[in-house]
C-alpha cells in the first residue's frame, strides 16, 4: 500500500495559547510559549499502525521524514521543503501542495496528513475526489469531516482499511481573521473521499445556529438559576454557552473562554495561563462547556484553553456540560480529550449533559479517545 504522509509541523500551535488558528500567527504563538503539536501526534499515529505492507511517500525533514525514520518505516522523500529545518524559516502551504502533488504522481492510495482545516483544504485542493485523504487532527480548528478522532483511531482505521471502501467527508475552512473577531464564517470546499471503516471519523462540525430557541432558553434559565455569588464561572465557546451569557445580559466571546463572577465578566477570551492565574484568586470554580458541533468534543477541540492543568486545579466535578437534545441527537459520540490520558480517564464512561430546565441526559463518553489521550496542548 502506498501512503502519502504530510505533517504540517506548525498546525495547532495557537490553540492552547488562546490564538484561534495558527496561520500567520506562528511567531506570536511561539512568543506566548506554544510548542509544536503535530510531531508527537504523527508519532502516535505511526506507532499505532499494525500492517506491514506500507511504503510511505513524504517530504523531507519535519514534514514527515523525521517521524517515519524514527518509527522505522520504509519511505521515499518526494519533496524537499523550500526552507528546510535549521534555516530559520518555516514550511508553508506551498510545501504542502507540492508534496501532495508528488504523492499523487506516485499513485498513493491515500494521503494522510497531520494538521487542521487549513491543511485539509490544501490537501483537498490537490487531490479532489481522485485520491483518498485522511486527517490526523492537530490543528486548532477542526470543522472538516475528513479527520479521524485521534491519531490512534487513524492508525486503527488504516490497519482495517481494504483500499476499496470509501465515503465522503466535507472539507471546510473557517475564515481565520473573522474567527479571531468572534465570527464563525465557514465555507464548504467540497467533498473529499475518505476511507470508511468501523472507526468513526469526526463528523463535520455542526453549526449550532439551528438549536431550538426554546431549549436554549431552558438551559440558560437553569444555568443562571444555579449560579452562585461565591463561584467563578468559566464559560466556553459556542452558541449554547452564548445563550447563558445572553440571559445574564453580558458579552460573550463566541470562540473563546470568558470568566464570569457575580454575573459580571471578569475575563474575556482567556488563554490557559490567564485561566490558571484566575484560579489563584477564586476558591470555587465551575466550567460551563458545550460539545463542539456534531464532532462531540467537550474538551480537546475548540476549548483547548481548558487544559488538563486547569482541570487538575478545578476538579472533574467543576465541569457542567450543556447541549440541546437536538444537538446531542446529531452528535454520534461525546469525547473528552484533555491531552492527558489520566485526566481523561477520571471522567468515566458517561457524562451528564444539561439539556433543559432542571433536566439532563446521561450520555455515553467515547472511551476509545478517552483512553488513548493525546499529547498535552501548549
Amino acid at each position, binding site marked *: 500500500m502506498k501512503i502519502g504522509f504530510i505533517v504540517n509541523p506548525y498546525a495547532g500551535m495557537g490553540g492552547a495559547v488562546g490564538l484561534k488558528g495558527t496561520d500567520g500567527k506562528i511567531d506570536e504563538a511561539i512568543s506566548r510559549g506554544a510548542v509544536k503539536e503535530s510531531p508527537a501526534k504523527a508519532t502516535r499515529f505511526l506507532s499505532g499502525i499494525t500492517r506491514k505492507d506500507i511504503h510511505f511517500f513524504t517530504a523531507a525533514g519535519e514534514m514527515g521524514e523525521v517521524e517515519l525514520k524514527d518509527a522505522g518505516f520504509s519511505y521515499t522523500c518526494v519533496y524537499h521543503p523550500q526552507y528546510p529545518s535549521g534555516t530559520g524559516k518555516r514550511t508553508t502551504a506551498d510545501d504542502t501542495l507540492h508534496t501532495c502533488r508528488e504523492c499523487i504522481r506516485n499513485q498513493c492510495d491515500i494521503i494522510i496528513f497531520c494538521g487542521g482545516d487549513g491543511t485539509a483544504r490544501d490537501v483537498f485542493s490537490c487531490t479532489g475526489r481522485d485520491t483518498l485523504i485522511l486527517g490526523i487532527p492537530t490543528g486548532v480548528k477542526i470543522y472538516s469531516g475528513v479527520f479521524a478522532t485521534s491519531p490512534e483511531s487513524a492508525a486503527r482505521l488504516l490497519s482495517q482499511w481494504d483500499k476499496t471502501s470509501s465515503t465522503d467527508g466535507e472539507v471546510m475552512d473557517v475564515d481565520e481573521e473573522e474567527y479571531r473577531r468572534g465570527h464563525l464564517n465557514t465555507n464548504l470546499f467540497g467533498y473529499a473521499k475518505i476511507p470508511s471503516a468501523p472507526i468513526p471519523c469526526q463528523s463535520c462540525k455542526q453549526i449550532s445556529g439551528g438549536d431550538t430557541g426554546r431549549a436554549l432558553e431552558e438551559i440558560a434559565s437553569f444555568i443562571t438559576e444555579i449560579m452562585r455569588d461565591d463561584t467563578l464561572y468559566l464559560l466556553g465557546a459556542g452558541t449554547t454557552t452564548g445563550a447563558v451569557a445572553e440571559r445574564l445580559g453580558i458579552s460573550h466571546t463566541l470562540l473563546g473562554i470568558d470568566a464570569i463572577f457575580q454575573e459580571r465578566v471578569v475575563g474575556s477570551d482567556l488563554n490557559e495561563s490567564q485561566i490558571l492565574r484566575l484560579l489563584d484568586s477564586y476558591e470555587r470554580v465551575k466550567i460551563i462547556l458545550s460539545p463542539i458541533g456534531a464532532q462531540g468534543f467537550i474538551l480537546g477541540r475548540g476549548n483547548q484553553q481548558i487544559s488538563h492543568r486547569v482541570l487538575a486545579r478545578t476538579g472533574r466535578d467543576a465541569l457542567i456540560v450543556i447541549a440541546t437534545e437536538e444537538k446531542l441527537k446529531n452528535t454520534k459520540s461525546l469525547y473528552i480529550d484533555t491531552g492527558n490520558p489520566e485526566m481523561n480517564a477520571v471522567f468515566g464512561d458517561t457524562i451528564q449533559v444539561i439539556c*433543559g430546565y432542571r*433536566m439532563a441526559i*446521561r450520555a455515553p463518553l467515547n472511551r476509545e479517545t478517552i483512553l488513548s489521550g493525546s499529547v498535552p496542548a501548549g
Partner: protein
Amino acid sequence: MDTKIILDENEMPKKWYNIQADLKTPLDPPMHPQTKKPVRPSDLELIFPKELIKQEMCQDRYIDIPGEVRDIYTLWRPSPLYRAFRLEKVLKTPAKIYYKYEGVSPPGSHKPNTAIAQAYYNMKEGIERIATETGAGQWGSSLAFATQLFGLECKVYMVRGSYDQKPYRKMMMQTWGATCVPSPSPDTNSGRAILAKDPDTPGSLGIAISEAVEDAATHDNTNYSLGSVLNHVCLHQTIIGLETQKQLEMVDETADVVIASAGGGSNLAGLSFPFVKDKIDGKNPDVEIIAAEPAACPSLTKGMYAYDYGDVAGLTPLLKMFTLGHDFIPPSIHAGGLRYHGMAPLVSHLHADKLIDSTSVYQNEVFDAAVLFARAEGIIPAPESAHAIRIAINKALECKKSGEAKTIVFNNSGHGHFDLSSYEGYFAGSLVDYEYPAELIAQSLKNLPALS
C-alpha cells in the same frame, strides 16, 4: 411447584391495612395552601367524600372493604402471584423471583383497586361527577371503568405527552363513558395560564392535578379523585400486598426483597406496606423494600423531604413529602405514570425512617429489562412496572454473584399493550436516558413554599 399461586375468591382480604396505625411517629399533617395551617376535614369536603377524608386521617389498623367493592374486585381479584421460573433460568440466578401481576384487571393495572373504592364512596354520598388527572392513562381508564359501574360521570385531564403517545388509553376511557382531554387544557384557569405561558408544554401530572382540582371545585356535585399519593389511595392498594403475603405463605416463602415502581407511591405502598408492617413488628425485620424510580424523576432518591404542593398551581394542600419541587416538569419519559414531582407522604415518611429504600434507573436499562422479562415470561410489562423489573433483575444478578437464594418479590403492576410505541422507540434506539441533575439543583431548590 406451580407457576401461578392462586387464591380463591373467598380468600380475598376483607380489610385494607392502614399503616398509619403502626408508624413510630405520626404523619406530619397536610397544610392548607392559603392559611398554611393544618388542614381540617371540613376543608377537604369541597372535593372529597367524607368517608375518604375519614380514611385519610384514620388511625385504625384495618378498615373494612365494602361488600359492593369486593364484589367488583372479584372481576379480577385475587390477582395471581407468579414464580418467574423462566426468568430465573435466563438469569441463571439462585434467587427465587416472584411477581404479583395486576395487569389482569379490566383496565390492565393496579389502579382500579382504589378507583372502585373511590367511585363507590362518592356514589354513596350522592356525588354525580368526578374529575381527575392521569399520567400514562392507567389511572384515567381505571376511574372511567369504576365510575361507569356506579353511574357517575367522569372527566379526565390527561398529561399531554402521554395523550399524544397513547391514544388507545383515551379510547378506553371513552368506551367506559368518560371524557378525556389533554392537559394543560383550555377548560380551566390553571390550564389556560400554562398554555398562555408555554403552548408547547408536554404537561405534567402536577399541571393535570391543578386542572382536575379546579374542575371539581368549580362544578356542582363534582368531586375530585386522585390515583396516587394520598393516604386513602395507598390504603386501598394494600390489598395487593395482603394477597401476596397469603400467596407466599401458601408456598412457605418469606420475602427477602420487595420491589415496586414509584411515581406517586401507591403501587409501592400497595405491595410493600404489609411487608413494612412485618419489618416494624419484627416478624421479618430484614426484608429489604425498594422503590424503583426513573432517573428522570427520582423524588425519593434525589428529592428533598419538605412541605410542598401536590400540584403545579398550588391549589392542593401542602404535603410533607420527598419532592423535586412542585414546579418541576419532568421530561417526557415513556413511563408517563412515574412523572410526578412528589411522593406519597406515607411512603416519604417510611423512607425518612429508613424502612423503605429507593433506587433510580435509566429509561434504556428499564426497557432492556422489560424486553428480557417479556421474552422469558411472556407478559409485556408497562414501562412503569418495568422499573421494578429492572431492580428485581439487578437483585437477582447480585444473588448470582453472591450465590444467595434470596426471595425477590416485585409488583408487575400492569401490562404494556398500550405502550408499544415506547417499545418501538426502544428498538429504534431513540430513547434518551434523561436524568435529574440533583447536585446542581440542590444549589437552587428555592421554589419550595415557606410555611412560616
